[in-house]
């Protein structure tokens, strides 16, 4: 039985680059998550996490980020595509935790200025997600030609994305509920 605790599904904004359009995408997804009954969310901007760069991995675990990952039932990762890959800072942040992620759902939102909507960065993130214990969902959101999708003030210009995000979030919530049941009730032994 799934308990009555609300699901916690934070959104991780995976870039610190100035002028990042992914911020608009992350805000839209966070807003749609916030409309769902029984779901709590938070936008985590990796640019604001005080992680050192003179070490890496769980040695630099940051208490607040760790607590949010531990509380989370699922994650949304919003990642731009830089040279076909994800930002180094996103990997640095993700690597700072492990037990906090195990058997939790993750959905990925790709963002690109080109026509492919971050499909290559999503493909590159999948093996990373698997290795840190996250369970990826089937549905992605791809923001292609992102400079045309949002106005300068962040207003969404193409409302068709709302339906795509809705489908994405419905699967993510289903997976989050299913995995919570498994984590809490179904034993490996």
């Amino acid at each position: 039985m799934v308990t009555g605790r609300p699901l916690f599904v934070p959104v991780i904004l995976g870039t610190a680059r100035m002028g990042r359009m992914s911020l608009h995408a992350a805000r839209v997804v966070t807003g749609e998550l916030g409309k769902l009954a029984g779901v709590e969310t938070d936008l985590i901007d990796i640019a604001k996490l005080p992680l050192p760069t003179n070490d890496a991995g769980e040695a630099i675990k940051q208490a607040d980020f760790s607590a949010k990952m531990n509380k989370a039932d699922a994650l949304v990762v919003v990642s731009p595509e830089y040279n076909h890959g994800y930002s180094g800072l996103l990997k640095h942040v993700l690597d700072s935790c492990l037990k906090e992620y195990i058997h939790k759902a993750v959905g990925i939102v790709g963002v690109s200025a080109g026509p492919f909507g971050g499909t290559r960065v999503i493909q590159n993130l999948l093996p990373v997600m698997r290795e840190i214990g996250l369970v990826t969902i089937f549905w992605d959101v791809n923001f292609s030609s992102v400079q045309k999708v949002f106005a300068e003030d962040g207003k969404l210009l193409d409302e068709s994305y709302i339906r795509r995000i809705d489908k994405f979030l419905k699967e993510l919530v289903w997976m989050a509920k299913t995995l919570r049941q498994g984590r809490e009730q179904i034993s490996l032994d």
Partner: protein
Amino acid sequence: MAVVARTDKMICPHCKVEMNHHCDKIVYNAGTDEAGSDPVLGGTIAEFHTCPKCGDGSSRHT
């Protein structure tokens, strides 16, 4: 030396109830110290447990 799996349950520090063991991960040590390493699997085993009451997760090495 054989490595024996632990059978004692982890207890949630918040709720004081037995946690559910739902995942193992093999961890390969970068150093030369092989203490605790499983001779068959070649690394130590990290167990992951979740509290059925509050959902808090925890881990331990066997």
